[in-house]
């Protein structure tokens, strides 16, 4: 089988993308933590601290609860793999990833849903009340956040005429998109969903270890060693995925188009890093300036995202130009 040079380049771009998201994900978490610490006038740990944490966790032995099943040991890898595959399909520095036709935006959302499904099962496996509380709250939040996300996808798909993320990003970079009310609503809804899905303030506190207020941390309470490392890395990847999604769709400039040269790809990579830095700063600023809400206020918060998404879609149904 003759392999053309273009295919090799495409495969390389896809490979670089997979490696890039894996390498950048802990850094993004580290930067957010650092900026938050600086905003609170603390010095904060180095931005490289997440890498060190992961390395240490990976080297440690796993302490497994006595009644843990085989599922409990498999789940960290399933969660990680599903999140990694999803993150590898979101255009970051280049469009037209070679495997982007395998999965559109709906599939990416559903892959994250797969990861969540299994993580919630892991919370139930040991049979402790903390695992159960985390799992039950997680699925409650997801039951509102997921439809909200799907409606955001609808809005984007109706504007771009495609659910394919590369096509959406390419369309958003053209001038004929213009300013639309529905896209503004979709952006707000997407950010709200992203906050909820990544267990950020005001929905959940990623730094808390106070049992009754935590959701994500309660689910993974029984994990240790390399299993915990996989789950932490998956969480970092998910944050990176949502950040890439927001900047890729709503700030689509600078991305290398398919078949572009090396220089275009380098420019794409540089702009991507800058965009991520902006997103990290914005997230840290937002998180420091708002309080966490009670768990039963959360449905109101994400319900608002759901309504915004619905409104955005409805406007597009009423008129294609809104």
């Amino acid at each position, binding site marked *: 089988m003759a392999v053309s040079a273009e295919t090799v380049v495409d495969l390389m771009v896809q490979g670089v993308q997979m490696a890039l998201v894996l390498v950048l994900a802990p850094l993004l978490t580290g930067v957010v933590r650092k900026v938050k610490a600086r905003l609170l006038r603390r010095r904060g740990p180095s931005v490289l601290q997440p890498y060190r944490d992961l390395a240490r966790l990976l080297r440690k032995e796993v302490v*497994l*609860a006595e*009644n843990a099943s085989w599922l409990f040991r498999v789940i960290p890898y399933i969660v*990680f793999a599903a999140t990694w*595959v999803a993150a590898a399909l979101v255009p970051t520095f280049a469009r037209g990833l070679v495997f982007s036709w395998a999965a559109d935006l709906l599939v990416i959302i559903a892959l994250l849903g*797969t990861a969540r499904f299994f993580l919630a099962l892991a919370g139930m496996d040991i049979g*402790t009340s903390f695992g159960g509380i985390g*799992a039950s709250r997680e699925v409650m939040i997801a*039951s509102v956040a997921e439809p909200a996300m799907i409606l955001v996808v609808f809005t984007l798909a109706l504007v771009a005429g495609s659910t394919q993320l590369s096509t959406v990003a390419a369309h958003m970079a053209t001038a004929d998109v213009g300013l639309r009310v529905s896209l503004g609503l979709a952006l707000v809804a997407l950010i709200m969903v992203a906050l909820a899905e990544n267990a950020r303030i005001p929905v959940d506190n990623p730094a808390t270890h106070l049992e009754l207020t935590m959701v994500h941390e309660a689910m993974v309470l029984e994990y240790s060693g390399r299993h915990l490392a996989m789950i932490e890395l998956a969480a970092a990847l998910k944050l990176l995925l949502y950040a890439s999604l927001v900047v890729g769709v709503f700030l689509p400039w600078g991305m290398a188009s398919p078949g572009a040269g090396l220089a275009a790809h380098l420019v794409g990579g540089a702009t991507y890093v800058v965009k991520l830095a902006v997103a990290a700063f914005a997230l840290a600023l937002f998180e420091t300036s708002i309080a966490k809400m009670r768990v039963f206020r959360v449905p109101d918060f994400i319900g608002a995202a759901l309504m915004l998404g*619905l409104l955005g879609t409805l406007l597009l149904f009423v008129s294609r130009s809104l």
Partner: protein
Amino acid sequence: MSAVLALLACAAGLLGLGVVGVVGGRGRVGAAVVYLGSATVCALAAVSAIGVLLGGEPVSEVVLPIGLPWLGAHFRIDALSALFVVLVDVGGAAAAVYGLGHGRHEGHPRRVLPFFPAFLAAMHLVLLADDAFTFLFCWELMSLVSWALVMAHHQQGDNTRAGYVYLLMAGFGTLALLLALALLAGSEGGYAFADMRAVEPAPHVAALVVVLVLVGAGSKAGLLPLHVWLPLAHPAAPSHVSALMSGVMTKVAVYGFVRIVLDLLATPPWWAGLAVLLLGAVTAVVGVLHALMERDIKRMLAYSTIENVGIVFVGVGLALAFDAHGMGAAAALALTAALLHAANHSWFKSLLFLGAGAVLVATGERDMDAQGGLIHRMPVTAFTFLVGCAAISALPPLNGFASEWLLFQAVLQSPQIEQWGLRILVPGVGGLLALAAALAAACFVRAFGVVFLGRPRTPAAMRAAEVDRASLAAMVALVVLCVLAGIVPGVLIDALAPVTSALLDARLPTQAALGWLTVVPIAEGRSSYNGLLVFVFIAVSAWLTVRVVHRLASDRLRRGPAWDCGFPDASPLTQYASGSFAQPIRRVFGTTVFAARETVEMPPPGDGRAARHRVTLLDPAWRWIYDPITAAVAGASLRLNAMQFLTIRRYLGMVFLALVGLLLVIAIWR
């Protein structure tokens, strides 16, 4: 022999097996003959039907000299019938193999054995029938035989009430279908389906037919608010029959709807799509919310069937709406999505009901809160149930996702519809669908987590053992089907093309022509999905990660007591159970839908009584529709009771008055 004759012979063979069940139902050999025979006949029938569906054999029909003397019994097989015959046969074969092992735990095998093959035969006959009389006769046969199966365990719990409600609703549904078909036949009495296709009914007749079919087929399928019998009757039957009723019989109802509205009725009214769409979406969400509130594992599955029927009807409704606006390709997409979901649901719901039956055998309890930790003692059942849960929760790369993805693609086609009502409704329907999917995931995390994970809550759950090999074989076969249908949905989509071509004169692009088994519903630039590649990606990256981590980092492992934040809690009762797991969702959705209320009775200090936490839920269908109706009927019959004790003079007076009244009516009519 033509396909229709072969299938009729299969149905006759199944009826014969029913007789075997009557005669030899007491012994083990008789049971083995009935179940093995049913599985074999189903396999033969499936081969024949697949030949019709894929091989494009010509539509074959036959008229048998039975039934009404001037009409005969018409039978016919086309692509639509063939598709549903395949669904019946796959579900039937799996249930029969499962019954081979599961049937040994049956206390009264003679209450099940004769009816099981007869039920399968009746479903085949409904799908083959080609005139109104045969169709209704077989439909009613299907209802009655399944009623007998529902009543098999009539001494237990609420099952007699379940049978009673089922009988009432089935009779009501058949009455509606009878009226619908009579309207279609017209005053000339063209009872053969071919005659009905030929005439175009007046608009008001068409409207009435759609409403009646929605009532008739919808009540069998479980559409709101006619669903009330379903969560009572489906769980009451033995588990492999529950699998048939939920997985397969609801699909026969979908067939009835599609056959009459899309095939026999030449031009459905413009609002038909809108009504079906709205009804389907509401059914999906309310059904899954009910499932989330349910403690009984089989009733939970029955409510989830209602949800999935809602999803199928959303697809059918979209197809009607697109068809009415001349958008053939979009209509084909929506109908393909609906039929694919019907097929997928029949597989994973059968799988889940069989799994629930295995749990019932192992622990003797349908209550989820009496289980726990079964993954350790029933590893194969747990694995198969997990695959079923993941498939029904629409997780890629399994089959439930493929059909829901297609349905979302169909929803995204709808801004081109001209009509305003639909344009405003469809985004809401899309949102409701997404909500139903997310809630279904929550529902099945809860089911699997409470039943199979955690620590055992009762001694029975602690002693549970894996079920027999025949049962496991049936479940594993369905798992294979779910996985295959998920990673290569293109094959199934191509198999559905003859159906959409026949009904809508449109089909999806041939998927087999695309490289890498990709699914492209409209055009490559719009959307594509490759289940195989997603599956391979996840599997390879997970495997690589495991290898790398174990090789380069650490593979040591130590077992210790659970950490649980330093609270080693003593009792397994402190685990989250079905009620507590659903509590956040109950507070978010249940207060509006079910008027859910929680009361806590805390005795004062010094009082030795236990504290109580009570949750009350009101089923809106019973509360607003059925309870008022039953109250009215009961009140009226109480009043009419007085008429039993009148004198002869008064009776004669009433006869006279009735006569005068009737004569007056006739006089005015003329």
